[in-house]
């Protein structure tokens, strides 16, 4: 199981992208998916290059990716610090398998947004 997923976004004006030049539905979907996963207690982070460059600079694989393929190669996705793929956002199924959640269960959660979910894990 993966403990931590990081998404390295291109430089965005805002996480939904609507105040940019067009609306990308992918961005709003991932924004919501991440917020649901966070509320379930999973460690998923999104970094916006324009506002949080630090995590980009400390991940050498991400730096190399941008050096070789430019910022057009973003978003990049790292699982437990290791660059997994780039050029797209993770799907619901990918998250489910990383965190060992049942695919359907996660989809169910996405359908019925509760106000707050406080799930804590006792280790």
């Amino acid at each position, binding site marked *: 199981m993966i403990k931590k997923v990081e998404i390295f976004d*291109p430089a965005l004006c*805002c996480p939904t992208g609507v105040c940019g030049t067009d*609306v*990308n539905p992918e961005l709003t979907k991932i924004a919501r998916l991440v917020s649901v996963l966070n509320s379930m207690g999973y460690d998923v982070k999104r970094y916006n290059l324009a506002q949080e460059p630090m995590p980009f600079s400390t991940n050498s694989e991400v730096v190399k990716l941008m050096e070789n393929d430019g910022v*057009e190669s973003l978003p990049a996705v790292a699982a437990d610090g290791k660059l997994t793929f780039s050029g797209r*956002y993770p799907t619901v199924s990918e998250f489910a398998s990383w965190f060992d959640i049942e695919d359907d269960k996660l989809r169910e959660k996405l359908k019925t947004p509760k106000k707050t979910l406080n799930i804590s894990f006792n280790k």
Partner: protein
Amino acid sequence: MKQLMIGDFVDTNYLFFTGKGGVGKTSAACATAVSLADQGKKVLIVSTDPASNLQDVFGTTLANKPAPVPGVKNLYAANLDPEEAAASYRNKIIDPYRNTLPKAALDSMEEQLSGACTVEIAAFDEFSTLLTDEDTTSEFDHILFDTAPTGHTLRLLQLPNAWSDFLETNDNGVSCLGPLAGLADKKALYQKTVEALANPERTKLVLVARPDDSTLIEAGKAAEELEEIGIRNQMLVVNGVFERSSDDQTAIQLEAMQQEALQSIPAYFGDKPTYHLPLVPYNLTGFQALRDLFDPEALEMIEEIPETEPIKLPSISEMIDDLSAKKQGVFMTMGKGGVGKTTVAAAVAAGLTDRGHRVLLTTTDPAAHVDLVMDSDSGDNLLTVSRIDPKKEVEKYKAQVLENVGEDLTEEELAYIKEDLESPCTEEIAVFRAFAETVDQAKDAFVVIDTAPTGHTLLLLDAAQSYHREVERTQGDLPESVKQLLPRLRNPEETFISLVTLPEATPVYEAGRLQEDLRRAQIEPAWWIINQSYHETGTTDPILSGRAHAERKWIREVQESYSRKTCIIPWQADKVKGLERLKTLIK
């Protein structure tokens, strides 16, 4: 209407001068500051205008901290350049990564942090810090702010309320106010700033306008909007009121036009105290000139104007010939409000139809009288006029966005989007899309538009486009017309952007900044158009020929420091008649 006297100011600590660029805010503020200091008051004048010419007026270099102004006892000045503040904010974020992140990444960060939002927030931050710093404020009897042009100022002043709402209601951490992230702790500071502004005992708002309809209307709007925010202690200063002492044709027209405009003041300003300052025959730079502004006798002593060779520049007709040779293309006028973009665009459209071209003229000015050019003798079949209403376009864009993404999204996702659609960038994007559609419709004709996108918008579009090329999976909804427009705008064979300015300090600086911004997007304006020139009228009136002489400095400045090609349009009595006369100039 009384002439403004320095005694009219003594009762308030904070004086804010607001009005469109070029109405003489800085001059009025500087003259007031100097006169108050002469009376023994300790005075600080602060400029927050990115196009500020405070340094020119005082003839000294200013820092962003209050410092004594050499030559005037008791007078201190500070120059808070919001663009510089924004740049230092940008650098604070980017600098630590200069060695660790690739250049492409740094460039893309830089562009995202170059938007209007970043500049505004940086400006407001600077301004609040100064206003709420009691060590500084308690030291001075009066603090004068020569604020940024109206629209900008309004957003600036309205922001704290928007922020308060935003910070209270937003629990998702979603923010179009990107640079604002982490500023929640400044809420108290901004709150205090708004309170100080709304306190009539301490703060007075000085609305500055010219005796012409457009700046009076603009000031009227500002008065209303600021009143809504709670800033009720307001006064109006009409700057540049002309009293003719000759029978010169231009002088007669100018005086008549001004008197007509002044009649409308009660309609916009009710019973607000109203004052005027005279039109002076010289540039308001240097302390003596500033002191003379409040001295009714100074005007009587007009200095002899030195004999000079007139500056010869091409007329607008020559620019139209240049354009006409291209057979088709996009012509855009760019410039700040009040410089005559719409009138010039209409004249160019009429000029092109006169030369036998098919033309689509598009205006974004809801009050434009462009229909008048439809009467143009040969233009009837060749000219089509269309309008883009920015407000309607924003609504349309919002509705379209919500419809496009609405279906598969949950309520919470929609809330995200709605929050972000409140961003100030939305209007520029919406207008840009609308005129991309317009340009797309007219492929084998000239398209003439009275507005142009900023370099920042173009660069963001460019980024969005390359993003789509590379990442097909995450295709957004960039319309085909927008995709095709960008390369056309970059192509100098197809697109002509002209910067419109007036032969005066602020409009020239403002146009210069627009040019810089376009150059960042690799677009070079083809022509500069100097509009409303007294120099070009050949007037012999003593005051107006003084103005004409004073214009030389700015005409030269445009030629030498800014433009590749420059044309000049003589002063016209008003927009409607002006257009009639322009039609004779375009042949």
